[in-house]
Structure formats: structure tokens, C-alpha cells
């Protein structure tokens, strides 16, 4: 495969990753990193550098929509970003020390975790959310209009400061692996902060851009973001994310969920195999 054809293939895969990522609330990195490392045999450090750019594109594109609609809780994000950015700096610094084999295994574990959280997600649908009471005056309270339920959803995050150490950990993982860490943030925002599902998805999507940008600055100045790899990904992922946002209301989410769980587990198996071979 020539370099030009590889760039076109990368753009096509990025469209798919953006599409799937926006449909399922996962970062596109779960498709991009395996494609770069397993198909194009790119060193995992460059794969992470390229995919972190993809995470920023997805977050900025979706974050604009979520911020305008109020689905992203901007004030809560101000608080959580403090922990997440410290984690991102720590992770980007650790990335130079850790061996490729460890990164392969860690990525496989994240894929398994994402699959498990998707399998369990239907159980969280009915989980308790923080309902505001007359005495609540939390600066982090939020509300948004749910078009599907045709009503305004109001909520108060439960123990918002507990979210800070949590996003510190997800910030480390995000920077280490070039993933958005939405698969970690969303279930935790639901179970610890008691956010409604859409607010958890929106706030996580909105936040991951700043986490990824922090580590991307370190990667870029260090020279780990290769333009010929990252540029077609940036273009493709934006197209995919836009198509996904338009397609979402028309597709059966449950069917997509099942298909993607199988895909995640297959990729986790492949990453583990490569970790063993590295």
C-alpha cells in the first residue's frame, strides 16, 4: 500500500470511527489505534499521538452541540477539568517511560472494560439521578430539554467533588492511550455523581477535548504527532461525527450496541496478542 493510499484508507477508517464514536458515545480511538498498529504497523506511540487529535475533533464537534443545548453541564466541567488536566499531564509524561507491551495490554483492558460497561448499560438506565429539591442551591445544578421525552430534565450532581479524583485517573488513561476515556467517565458520572445518562454523555464528551488537548500539546512539541497520519484522521473523524449525529435518531441503538460489543472484544483479543508478541 502506498503512502497516499494509506492516507485515504486512514481517512475512511476515521469517518467510520467518528460515525461509530458519536453513535455509541465512545471515542473514535478504539477503532483508529488498532487500525494504525495492527494494519499499518505504526509504532503505538505515533498511533496514540494521531488518535488524540481525533479525540479533540470529536469532542469539539459534539461539544459545540452539547454546550448550546445544555446537555453538557459546563459548570460541573469547570470543576472536573481541574482533576482531569492534572491527570493528562501525568499520563503524557508517563507515556515516554512505559513500554509498548504494557500499553497494548492496558489498551486491551480498556476495550474489555468498555464492552462490559456497554453490556451493563441498560441496567443503569433506571439508576437514581440527583433530583433537585426546594433547598438545593448547588452551583453545579443543571437542566436540559430532552427532545425524546419531551420534557425539561433538572438535576443536581451528587457529591461533585468526588468526581475530581475519578477524572484524574481517567485523564491519566486518556493521555497514556490516546483515548477519550468516555467509556470510563460516563459510567462513573452515572453511578457516583448521579447524572442523567444524556448529561453524563454530554459532559464527558465536552470535557475530553481539554484533557486530550493538554496531552496533545506535550505529544506535538515532543514530535509524536505525525502530520501524514493525524491529518487524514482529523478530516475523516469530523465528517463521521457529523453523519453520526444526524443518523442517531433513526437507528436502533440496541442493535448497534450489541454489534460494537463484539467488535470491542475482538479488538481486545488482537491487542492482547500483539502485547504478547511485542
Amino acid at each position: 500500500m502506498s503512502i497516499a493510499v494509506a492516507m485515504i484508507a486512514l481517512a475512511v477508517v476515521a469517518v467510520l470511527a467518528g460515525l461509530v464514536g458519536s453513535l455509541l458515545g465512545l471515542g473514535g480511538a478504539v477503532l483508529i489505534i488498532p487500525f494504525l498498529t495492527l494494519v499499518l504497523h505504526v509504532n503505538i506511540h505515533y498511533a496514540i499521538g494521531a488518535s488524540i487529535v481525533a479525540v479533540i475533533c470529536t469532542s469539539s464537534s459534539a461539544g459545540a452541540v452539547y454546550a448550546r443545548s445544555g446537555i453538557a453541564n459546563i459548570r460541573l466541567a469547570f470543576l472536573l477539568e481541574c482533576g482531569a488536566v492534572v491527570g493528562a499531564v501525568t499520563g503524557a509524561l508517563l507515556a515516554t517511560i512505559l513500554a509498548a507491551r504494557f500499553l497494548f495490554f492496558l489498551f486491551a483492558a480498556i476495550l474489555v472494560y468498555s464492552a462490559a460497561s456497554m453490556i451493563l448499560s441498560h441496567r443503569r438506565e433506571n439508576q437514581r439521578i440527583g433530583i433537585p429539591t426546594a433547598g438545593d442551591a448547588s452551583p453545579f445544578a443543571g437542566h436540559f430539554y430532552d427532545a425524546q421525552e419531551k420534557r425539561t430534565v433538572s438535576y443536581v450532581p451528587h457529591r461533585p467533588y468526588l468526581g475530581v479524583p475519578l477524572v484524574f485517573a481517567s485523564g491519566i488513561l486518556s493521555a497514556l492511550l490516546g483515548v477519550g476515556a468516555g467509556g470510563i467517565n460516563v459510567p462513573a458520572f452515572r453511578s457516583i455523581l448521579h447524572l442523567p445518562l444524556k448529561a453524563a454523555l454530554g459532559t464527558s464528551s465536552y470535557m475530553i477535548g481539554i484533557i486530550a488537548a493538554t496531552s496533545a500539546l506535550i505529544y506535538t512539541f515532543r514530535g509524536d504527532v505525525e502530520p501524514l497520519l493525524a491529518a487524514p484522521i482529523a478530516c475523516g473523524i469530523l465528517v463521521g461525527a457529523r453523519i453520526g449525529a444526524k443518523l442517531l435518531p433513526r437507528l436502533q441503538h440496541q442493535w448497534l450496541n450489541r454489534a460494537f460489543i463484539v467488535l470491542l472484544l475482538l479488538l481486545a483479543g488482537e491487542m492482547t496478542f500483539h502485547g504478547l508478541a511485542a
Partner: protein
Amino acid sequence: MKSDSEATAHRLENAIALTLTLGVGIAVAVVLTGIIITLSSEPALWHLESAGYVQSLHPVPLRPALLLHELRTAPGIAAMTAGLFLVICTPLARLAVSTIMLVHTREYRFLPLTGFVLLLIAASVVLGIHPAH
């Protein structure tokens, strides 16, 4: 009728949304221009094997002088690099806009939080330019 705090919140949300939309739109347009220039001006890319290229990859730290040099020798690559840098700066721009909006609307309680994040990001730039060995 919206209350003052709701109107303030909407202004902040709209400013953030506009920053993100414009930022990522401009950045990707620059990246796309770079790809088109590179693919049309470097016919070798259509023949050289990607396997050889990825094996020869080595870190090229981003520096302004390098970007200026590339602008003369490989304008497509320079445009791609500049566009990717704009992509990375987009979330930072929305943080800066948030900070300005918070000052403008006198919502000072969140300022220490955004200030702390901006400070850390500045530290990450320093760490990127002068990595610890």
C-alpha cells in the same frame, strides 16, 4: 421570561459553542488544504510503500523555526502541521473564552477553576518544549 442567571448561562453556552464550531471548522479546512497540496505536489507519495515510511518514523519536535522552514520546502506538510496545532488549540480557546465570559458576567466563583486549568496547560507546553530527561 428568562432570569438574569439563565440569560448569563445561555450567553456562556453560546459563546463556547461558537468558539468550538469555528475553531474546529477552520482547523480542519487548513488540514484539508495541506493534504491536497501534499498529495498533488508530491507524486512519490503515490508510489512509496507505507510500510517503509512508518518504519522510518522518528520524533520531529514541533518548533516555530521548523514550521517556517517547512513552509518554504514542504508547504503542504506545514499547512497540515499548522492545522493540527489549531485543532489542539480549539479546546484551549474555548477555555480562554469561558474565562473572559466569566469575568464579563462577573461570575467570579468559577474563575479560580478555569485559571488553574489554563496554568496547567501552560505548564504542559513548557514540559513539551523542554521535556524532562
